[in-house]
Structure formats: C-alpha cells, structure tokens
C-alpha cells in the first residue's frame, strides 16, 4: 500500500470577533507532521494517565491537575509557533511543559518530588519551568498579566517573538485579565491570549460563572476567534493566523479553544458531581483529539495501522521508563532546602525552625 506524503483537510470555520477574515478553512498535513503530532499527543495522554495511577498509589501528592482530553490544544499551539516564542499557562501545565521542551522523565520526576525533576523537586505539579516557558502558575489568572509582560519584553527587545498566554474559562472572570487586555491593546503587545474553555471551572459550569460565555469576545476591543480545540489542525491554523496578526504589529488577539477534560478538576475531584458520565463518554467517543487525527491519517492513507501501533508501543515504553525513573530517583538532598531563594546572590544564612538552626542558601 502506497502512503501519501500529505493531504489537504477541510477544517471548521472559526467564529470571528472584530476580524474581517479568519484562518483558512483548509489545512495541509504532511505525513511527518501527522506522525509527530500523533506521537506527542499519545505521549501526553499516556503521561497523564500514568500520573493518575501514581497519584492513586500516593507516590504523587498535593495537587495534580490532568490534561487528558485537551492534547490538541498544547500540540496544536506549539505547531503554530516557534520554540523561540514564549508561552505561559496556569496549573494544568504538564502538557505544555512537554511541548516546550521538557522531557517526560523530568516532568514525572518533578511530580514525584525527586532531584531529577524539572524544578529539582521543589516546584511540583503546578510549578514546572523550561526555556521560554514561564510555568506552571498556581494563582488563577495571575499568569495573564505575566504573559503580557513577557510580550512587552518581546516587543522591547525587537526580536519578532511573541507570547502565548493561556488561561481557563474559570479564570476568564478574573479582574486582572481585563486590566491586561486594556494595557496589551493600548501598547499593542505581541500577545496571543488563549482561553482553554473546557466548560467547567472546577465544579462550576460556564453558565453559572460567566454572564457572557463568548470568551473570544470578552476582550471587547481585542479581535478574537473561537476555535474547535479538539481538532489539532484547527488549533494549528488558528495559532498561525494569530501569530501572524501579532508579528505584524497589530497588537494582541484572543483565541477561545473549545475543549474538554476527561478527568475532574484535580485528582481530588471525581469530576462527576457536576457533569454526567454520559457527557464524558460522548466527548470521548465523538471528539477525542487523538482518535480524530488517527482516523484522518488512516482514512487518507497517510499512515498504516502497524505504524501507529508501533508508535503506541514505543510511547508506552517511554512512559514506563520515565515512571521507573521517577519512582527510583532519590529525593532532593537536604542541603538543597534553602537554595535558590535569590538569583546571582552571594551565599546567605537562613533561619531554620529554631534560633540554633542556621541553614545555608546559595543562588
């Protein structure tokens, strides 16, 4: 069977706000791209499910907000920008840590609080960082002004970079976001605001939290688009469109990605007290991002069943390997307790739990 090297797909037209035209309604997917997206989304999916398992075994503790269901967003966005661009998101951040250059091993070891973690075990699930990736932020909405600030620096430094600034439907009601919209627009900051609307802010559905659930319009004077967040090609094309908008100096733009999370808000939320199992099942069977991509590629001879199966096997092994590392790597050394309080600072003394305990901190 001969496999085609690329295919042109029709994608859903985006709803537009204060825009004359939107992203193209057709997207070209090459075989390499398809396989790469598939692999990355599978890694993300398997990684989150493994984290679920480890959390239930109490090897991961504290807060753990899983991303399964929303893979098309993270992978699609990254496909529309460059690694030299910047990105910031809230606490449902494992997927973005991966797309921004973190390895599965580092991410999992951070979740289990070991020294091999991407933040040396000191940050945990909500505080993972990488180059041009500013976390991982625990305070809802606070990352939005931060993202605009990164965009300000981009404009200031004139390197034609932009910042993708993500937040959820729950966070969309935070005041600081509107303050940010105003300043980003006034100063024409190269910032793509992306609202990942997964229909629920913890246990509160969008109707109960927002007077207007048209999140792509909430920026008022900022142009916006509403995108099918379960279709990776839609997300990619919309992101490319938005990136062009920013890079041409037109200022910020808002994208609303309509997506869905299979897990509850966090591992302590079963996720079924405010939504039905039927709803979750329906999304899983009709709109799963990975299945959609797989079907597209198989139906159009872009990949063979065996190829994809092989990728699955490799992914499974990679996750097992990472989990093994994450559970056997030792915890951070006690000497590291007080380090990294400051940057570029001579060593300082830190008070311990009582006046006789004097600890050392290096930058």
């Amino acid at each position: 069977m001969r496999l085609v090297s690329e295919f042109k797909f029709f994608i859903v037209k985006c709803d537009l706000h204060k825009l004359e035209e939107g992203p193209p309604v057709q997207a070209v997917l090459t075989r390499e791209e398809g396989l790469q997206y598939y692999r990355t989304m599978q890694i993300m999916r398997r990684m989150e499910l493994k984290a679920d398992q480890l959390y239930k075994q109490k090897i991961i503790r504290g807060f753990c907000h899983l991303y399964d269901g929303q893979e098309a967003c993270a992978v699609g966005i990254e496909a529309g920008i460059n690694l030299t661009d910047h990105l910031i998101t809230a606490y449902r951040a494992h997927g973005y840590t991966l797309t921004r250059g973190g390895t599965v091993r580092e991410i999992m070891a951070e979740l289990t609080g070991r020294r091999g973690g991407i933040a040396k075990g000191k940050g945990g699930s909500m505080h993972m960082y990488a180059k041009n990736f500013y976390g991982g932020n625990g305070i809802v909405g606070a990352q939005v002004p931060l993202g605009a600030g990164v965009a300000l620096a981009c404009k200031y430094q004139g390197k034609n970079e932009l910042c993708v600034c993500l937040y959820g439907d729950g966070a969309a009601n935070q005041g600081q976001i509107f303050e940010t919209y105003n300043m980003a627009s006034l100063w024409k900051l190269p910032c793509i605001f992306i609202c990942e609307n997964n229909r629920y802010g913890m246990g509160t559905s969008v109707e109960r939290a927002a007077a207007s659930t048209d999140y792509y319009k909430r920026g008022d004077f900022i142009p916006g688009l509403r995108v099918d967040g379960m279709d990776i090609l839609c997300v990619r094309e919309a992101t490319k469109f938005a990136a062009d908008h920013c890079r041409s100096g037109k200022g910020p733009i808002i994208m609303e990605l309509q997506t869905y999370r299979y897990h509850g808000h966090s591992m302590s939320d079963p996720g079924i007290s405010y939504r039905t199992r039927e709803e979750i099942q329906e999304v899983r069977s009709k709109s799963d991002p990975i299945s959609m991509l797989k079907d597209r590629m198989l139906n159009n001879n872009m990949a063979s069943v065996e190829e994809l199966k092989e990728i699955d096997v490799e992914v499974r092994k990679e996750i097992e390997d990472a989990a093994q590392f994450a559970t056997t790597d030792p915890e951070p050394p006690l000497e590291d307790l007080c380090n990294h309080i400051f940057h570029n600072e001579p060593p300082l003394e830190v008070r311990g739990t009582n006046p006789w305990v004097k600890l050392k901190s290096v930058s």
Partner: protein
Amino acid sequence: MDKIRNEQIRGTVKVEQFGDKAREARLRWFGRVLRRNRGYIGQRMLEMELPGRRRRGRPQRRFMDVVKVDMEMVGVKVEEAVDRARWRQMIHCDFQLLQVTVRDALNQAMDEELERDERVFLLGEEVAQYDGAYKVSRGLWKKYGDKRIIDTPISEMGFAGIAVGAAMAGLRPICEFMTFNFSMQAIDQVINSAAKTCYMSAGLQAVPIVFRGPNGASAGVAAQHSQCFAAWYGHCPGLKVVSPWNSEDARGLLKSAIRDDNPVVVLENELMYGVAFEVSEQGLSKDFTIPIGKAKVERPGNHVTLVSHSRMVGHCLDAAAVLAKEGIECEVINLRTIRPLDVETIEASVVKTNHLITVEGGWPQFGVGAEICARIMEGPAFNYLDAPVIRVTGVDIPMPYAKILEDNSTPQIKDIIFSVKKTLNM
C-alpha cells in the same frame, strides 16, 4: 428537616450505645461465673458440648464464641476475671463524649448561625453546589438555597468587595476564600474597605463581616498554596483575627466571629479539618461562643510555657507528653486569637514558669512569635524570664514541594523538644 446524629442525642442524655452496654453485661456475667466455686453449673455450661450432630449451614455462635470476641474488643484475658474490681473497671463501657471533626464543627456553627439570623449568608467559590472545596459547607446549599449560599466566579477582589458592601448595607456575610493564599487577590478590600471603615467614619459605618478559609501549610501543595497569613492580618488595626485549633475552638470562635459587628478573619487549617475531637455538651449548644481575644491554657505546667496557635498547638501537646516522661512539665497555651493578642494569659504563665517558647507554622520575620517576644519584653513578665524567649517557626524559605524538603520546612515535635531542653539548659 433537621438532622440530629445519634451520637448527639446519646451525648445529650448521656446514654451509651446499646451494643456496648450489652457487651458489658455479657462480660460481667462471665466474670461472675468464673469466680464461682468449681463445679458451678454455669461453668459447666460454658464448655458444654451437646451430643448429636450439628445442623447444616453456618454454625451457630455459642456464648463462648461471642465472649471471646468481646474480650478481644475490650482487651481483657480470662485470667483477669479473678480480680472482681479490676475486671469491672476494665469492662465498663464509658459513655463517650461526642467526637466532632473540625470540619463538622465549622459546618454546624455556620448552619446554626444561618438559622439564627436571616442576615447571615455565605459566599465564595464552590461553596454551594460543590458543597465546598473542602466540604466545610456541605449540605448548606441544599438546606438554605441560592439566596443564602452563593457560588461566585473566580473573582476574589470582586466578590470580597461585594461582600464588604453587603455588610455595610446591613447584611452579615461570611466570605470564604478557598485558601487564604487567594485572599491576596482581595486583600485591599479586607484591609482598606473592611478593617478601616469604622474608624474612618468615626463609628458611623460598621462592617460585620467574616472572612474565613484554610490558612498555612497543607501537604504537598508547594509554595503558592502554603503561606500563613496570621502575621499579615494580625498587623492591622480594625481587624480581629482568630485561629482555631480544635473542634470546640472552631465552633465557638466562628460563632463569635459571625455574631461580632466587626470584620473578623478566621484562619482555619486544612490538615485539621478531618481531625476529630471530643466536644463537651456545653460546646454543642447553639449559643456556645468563645470570646475573641482570650487564650486558653490547654495543659498546665511549671517548667516552661509553650505558646502556639492552630495546628501547632497539637504539636506542642505532643511534645509536652514526651517531655513529661522526663519530668519536664510544659504549660501549653492555645492563643485562639491572634488579634487582639491575649498577653495577660501569656504573662501570667511566664511569671510561673520563667521560660517561654512560641511555636508557629509561619515564617519568623515579623511573625506572631516576634510580636509575643516584643510584648513580653515590654511588660512585667520580662523580669521573670530566666532565658530569652525562643521562637520555633517555619523555615525562612518558600515552601518546597518534595516531601523530604517540606517535612524539614515546618516545625516538628522534635524541634519543640529541642528548644525546651535548650532553654532549660539541659
């Protein structure tokens, strides 16, 4: 429909569980039989085997089968029946004081105050239909509905301001912050709008509001979710700040806070929510309040004073139990209120013990312990100190995530014991 738990009814009328009473009766009789002369027919009955075959199916339990289980439950052995007085004492089932978790205590306090005063209402994230992020407001929305229990969007500055405005206009809101870390988003409303208004209006405008929520370190929630705000809120005139430790504290202080005509910050603790404590009958009454501004001596002692608030009070009591075995008697004071600070109780204790240690979960600089040190130094108790006051505090760093680092970032019982021995020159 009012829900009154069985334990509460039993507690009020001081009646034990029937099953426990029946067990005591069985064991009492058993002991009596054993103490009779040999050959007493009752004794022969204990070990008797009936002739013939047993029926099919599950074997019937005989008296001895049941008594064996009873003895295991109570923790006695057959040989101990010889000593009648001791046997009676060991098998006696005591009526148990009602055990209430801190979560339920807070829940009941809010329920009772909502019922008592129509102006009281609760607002916050997930407090209504989700039953509360930590289930503290479980059942309240079902009972009181949308008007009294309000789910807010994630807009702390906004809803805190709304709550303060409602208080100014005559209502008595309870504003819940999912954790006090998020109160930083709204702190301007708490301080500038709530705390200072009565003063700025020369008494014309009261703000009878309660801000409550979990404060301080939890388990594995990392830096942005683990800060203790006792020092920050305790710093501001116009605010009252309370920090309950056990269930009785939680009930009494929350009720007082709701009934108080001034802004009160109630600093709860997530790790304490699930802990159960005995609550006295008096503590369960609907009008039970604990005065704001009064500390409690949880454990009397002569050698050293340990002053603490919230979860650390439990640590102090544990440390005191360990030290008691070495003959060191610690007096443990539960502050209960951060502002106004009950200095008199601390001073009276220092006059007795001559040694003072403060224990808190928060950071040392400008903290609760630092304030206590200053106040003691400024007052009459200073002359009674045989050694400088010691502050046991959290380590001066943002809270790390990894377990081994987190465990070493907050005071452990061994830190308290170490400090006691240091101050007593041991």
